[in-house]
């Protein structure tokens, strides 16, 4: 009995508590989006009011579209750069590779706030106006390390003999890249793209410091609405975003199937 208590019950309760801590706020947020109350208060009475308000709220929708496009562009640039970097770094000497890797990974360990500030000061220093180009550049800097992490893990598990084999069978370097290297890296490219997308999509600091006046992103809008009065439209749009992310994840899971499984779970024999 005592053994059951210490070995089974306590760990289970502990795990459930941790999960509750993670998911309860999200569930509350989603539920309150369907509540009539303006101030997220009980009693609960079901309403789609905030969803219809959201549909008419152009500021919020435009901000969401901006965030989506920005994250998409950032993710695309990141996967192309990250793929080029990891392949290029293979040809460097060990110490050069280490140096290069550290330089790319560094933004992970510098607070985004500091990075954003330095970029803003740099733009001022160059006497330029804030524009979307800098916002994208800033987002690429902070998202790239995540795309790199995913690709590096994959490329290290990649058997270098595959590319040699392809060459010995008569394939040109380009053909080998297209038919062997890219398919082998594909799961990592997709996963890296997703990570970069997520990092960019919810980034606040970089966007806030660098974005030109009159434009905004979803995190910036949410932040300002908290300041100036918060309506459950925010709950509604958050719920939509969570839904879309889950849908994307499911689709990718279906397409990539076992390759994602392999990547996350490592190489199982």
């Amino acid at each position, binding site marked *: 009995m005592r053994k059951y208590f210490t070995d089974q019950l306590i760990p289970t309760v502990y795990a459930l508590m941790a999960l509750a801590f993670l998911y309860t706020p999200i569930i509350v947020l989603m539920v309150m989006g369907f509540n009539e109350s303006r101030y997220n208060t009980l009693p609960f009475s079901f309403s789609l009011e905030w969803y219809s308000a959201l549909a008419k709220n152009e500021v919020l929708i435009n901000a969401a579209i901006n965030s989506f496009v920005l994250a998409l562009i950032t993710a695309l640039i990141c996967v192309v750069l990250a793929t080029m970097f990891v392949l290029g770094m293979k040809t460097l000497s060990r110490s050069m590779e280490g140096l290069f890797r550290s330089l790319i990974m560094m933004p992970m360990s510098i607070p985004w706030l500091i990075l954003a500030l330095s970029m803003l000061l740099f733009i001022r220093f160059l006497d330029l106006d804030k524009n979307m180009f800098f916002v994208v550049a800033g987002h690429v800097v902070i998202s790239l390390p995540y795309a790199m992490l995913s690709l590096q893990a994959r490329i290290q598990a990649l058997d270098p003999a595959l590319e040699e084999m392809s*060459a010995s*069978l008569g*394939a040109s370097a380009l053909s080998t890249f297209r038919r062997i290297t890219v398919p082998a890296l594909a799961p990592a490219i997709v996963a890296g793209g997703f990570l970069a997308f997520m990092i960019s999509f919810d980034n606040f600091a970089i966007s806030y410091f660098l974005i030109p006046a009159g434009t905004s992103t979803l995190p910036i809008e949410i932040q300002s609405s908290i300041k100036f009065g918060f309506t459950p439209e925010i709950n509604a749009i958050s719920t939509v975003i969570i839904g879309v992310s889950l849908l994307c994840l499911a689709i990718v899971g279906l397409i990539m199937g076992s390759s994602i499984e392999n990547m996350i779970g490592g190489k199982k024999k």
Partner: protein
Amino acid sequence: MANIKLENLTKRFGENTVVDRVNIEIPNGTLVSILGPSGCGKTTLLRMIAGFETPDEGSIFFDQDSVVNVPANKRNIGMVFQSYALFPHMTVEENVAYGLQQRKLSKEEIDARVKQVIDTVHMKEFQKRKPKQLSGGQQQRVALARALAISPRLLLLDECLSALDKKLRVEMQTELRKILEESKVTTFFVTHDQEEAMTLSDFIVVMNKGIIEQMGTPLEVYEKPKNKFVASFLGKANFFQSEDGTSFAVRPEKIHLSAEEQAGARQEGVITFITYSGNITSYTIECDGEAVLCEKQNVQIRENLKKGQKVFLRWDKDSEIELADE
């Protein structure tokens, strides 16, 4: 298919000369094993022939053509690696077709050739599978089929049986030999397994520390090894000094043992260890502080020799292998 000639082939990595002035000439259709301990340069040699490493000196000829400056993808060489390196995202068929597709053949030609090669290695029922769904032996066959599909001038096998378990390896050796004899392709087979080299090859090249120690048929290198290294790397050997100071070797199976003193006995000693392994029994005999190994075919069950017993050793003069001075 081609005659292959390596001339003074040399490769250095920094201060290390890993392949040192290697000369080999092999006629069309032969199977040559390159045998040596790890680090002897055999894999580097193979990689130079394949075009993955550039030699620092020397030439490689396929028939009359020097290929040193030909890139790997233009050499038309079939390769099988120890890891097989099957393309994981392609089915068996697609793996085998890959090399043919690079050659811009028509779809009909490719399909016909793929079918033919897959039949040769008996993998017809698995052709739609991915490599992950195959056993080690099956993957091995696919790797071989893929290398043979392109009708290579030369086939390079790099420790390609080492990953299989013993029983399967022996089966594959026989099958490999059959397939290679049918396809008549000149083959280099790199291995550190002397038994495998003996079973498979027409010629054996014994390498050590970047140089060729000896080259010859399996019979020649086993019966007439030139030096101590070859004698001990290929099979087992006992080493003795003759009265004039030269050294010679005697294979364990060529030593006769008897409990009674007889004419012509060369050594006498005490049995210190007996190992019975079914077909043979091995005796370790201590003679003047030197351990001598002797192996007997168990034609009859012999139990007359016991541990601690004094025995007399005899061998024919022909069984003495003279060794070059080291």
